[in-house]
């Protein structure tokens, strides 16, 4: 019996969300008195995979088939299933990402495993039952869920675990081949188009986010959002009406019908705080609201607030960050 963690890599580096997954997996292994092995997907380098030792991972399986660089559902599922078989893994931990959830759901059927996505805490053993806590109702609630059966798959929500810092520990990287054939790549993408990221920071992975709403008045004013984001090393986001009218690209839209973010810091500028917007951001650790209307509902969900005009406040904040650095 062991724990298998799936780590996603990008440009040779392990994604931050996958460090959290590795940390989760090794802590579960410790609870169960076993070890955690990782299997890498995406573009990985051996040197970087070895650093997973810091997350309590002893061994990393790496298939250097170059076709695995981009996400291919069929191939990734087969690779991870083969790794789970080899390691007799009873628990598989992955990120609650577009990749992790897509692979996890297929694996759960193939391996006859129970599956919980959007998991926010380490499991509890409760009267012989394996119980995980997961987000439900779009961030408006949590649920405790029993995972039954021999095998369990857990998709961990971003930013809900701290990476470990076992300085100096390294993992051994082992070559692994899942004997993938062309048929496994039938759903390979024809083309991959990456977005221009403001400041190079990916919104779903960001730990700081500066977000703008209709109160920003127009796309020509977004330099105020971008300047603050740049000074903070934050990603930029927006409310739905802003992307609906094309002030900002659709992939920046957060909320119930956009993407869900859970950064350490979310700064909302000129956003009223509609319930559908809050659903996508309310698991952020610290929420700052800047709005000229003291009655804006967002203040009820905020930790810090400034009642004021964004055009006056944002430059002051950017200046203050620059002075601090």
């Amino acid at each position, binding site marked *: 019996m062991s724990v298998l963690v799936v780590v996603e890599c990008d440009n040779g580096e392990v994604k931050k969300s996958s460090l959290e997954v590795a940390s989760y997996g090794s802590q579960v292994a410790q609870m169960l008195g076993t070890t955690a092995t990782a299997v890498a997907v995406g573009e990985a380098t051996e040197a970087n995979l070895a650093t997973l030792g810091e997350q309590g991972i002893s061994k990393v399986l790496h298939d250097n088939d170059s076709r695995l660089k981009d996400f291919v559902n069929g191939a990734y599922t087969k690779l991870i299933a083969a790794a789970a078989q080899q390691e007799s893994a009873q628990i598989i931990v992955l990120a609650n990402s577009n990749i992790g*959830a897509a692979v996890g759901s297929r694996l759960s059927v193939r391996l006859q495993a129970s599956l919980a996505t959007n998991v926010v805490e380490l499991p509890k053993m409760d009267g012989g039952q394996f119980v995980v806590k997961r987000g439900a109702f779009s961030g408006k609630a949590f649920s405790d*869920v029993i995972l039954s059966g021999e095998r369990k798959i857990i998709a961990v929500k971003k930013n809900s675990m701290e990476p470990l810092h076992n300085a100096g520990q390294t993992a051994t990287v082992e070559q692994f081949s899942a004997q993938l054939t062309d048929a496994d790549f039938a759903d390979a993408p024809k083309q991959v188009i990456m977005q221009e990221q403001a400041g190079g920071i990916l919104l779903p992975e960001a730990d700081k986010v500066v977000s703008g709403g209709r109160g920003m008045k127009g796309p020509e004013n977004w330099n105020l959002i971008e300047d603050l984001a740049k000074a903070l090393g934050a990603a930029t986001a927006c409310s739905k009406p802003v992307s609906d009218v094309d002030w900002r690209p*659709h992939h920046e839209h957060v909320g119930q019908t956009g993407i869900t973010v859970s950064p350490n810091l979310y700064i909302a500028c000129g956003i009223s705080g509609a319930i559908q917007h809050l659903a996508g951001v309310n698991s952020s650790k610290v929420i700052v609201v800047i709005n000229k209307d003291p009655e804006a509902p967002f203040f009820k969900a905020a930790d810090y607030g400034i009642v004021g005009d964004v055009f006056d406040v944002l430059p002051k904040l950017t200046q203050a960050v620059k002075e601090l650095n």
Partner: protein
Amino acid sequence: MKFLVCISNVPDTTTKITFTPDNKELNKAGVQFVINPWDEYALTRAIELKEKLGGNVTVLNVGEADTEPNIRKALAIGADDAIRVNAKPTDAFFVAQQIAAAAKEGGYDIILMGKESIDYNGFQVHGMVGELLGIPTVAPAIKLDVEGNTATLEREIEGGKEIVEVATPFVVSCQEPMCEPRIPNMRGIMTARTKPLKVVEPTGEAARTQVTAFALPPKKQGVKLIPAESAGDLIKLLRNEAKVI
């Protein structure tokens, strides 16, 4: 071309979520149930494709009789017929088995779903159905076009998108901006009443997960307001007090 659109029945997005006193179930009192917003994209896109290519759109819901008003609404928007699998949808795997069984029986070319159900936020039924049927799943897709029996899709990935080509049959989970969801018109509402709605009994294995308790997120302490004149102080608080920068 035969389209199967799967819809879940969820609390309206403005619902203030509360639970029954034992915290085991959603308190449904005063809650309005709607078609899962993402499933509206799946439904509208299926209808658009049918209008272009010809064929038939079937909607399917796994749920008890109280979901029928929303199934009728889907028929009013433009689906041709409907199936309700008569069961309480206890978890994603249970639901996926019902959809896969119906899909096998009906021989659909494209099975459309929403990105996720906004009640349990599983983001998993589509992958499970694809695996149960041994066909590809493309999730989440922001674009879907069909030519002959090949579809071209744009799949959203973290930080970008992939262009994917798959042959039918396949499963796709839809999200905006795939299309502009339609609302029912008067004629649609009238004709929906007489469109066929078949009720079938569930099959397959039991659920693999079980919710034992719900909880609301911890309440915020209350907002700390900083005067606009000294906005820069906020940055100091974020560094020294909240320790997030």
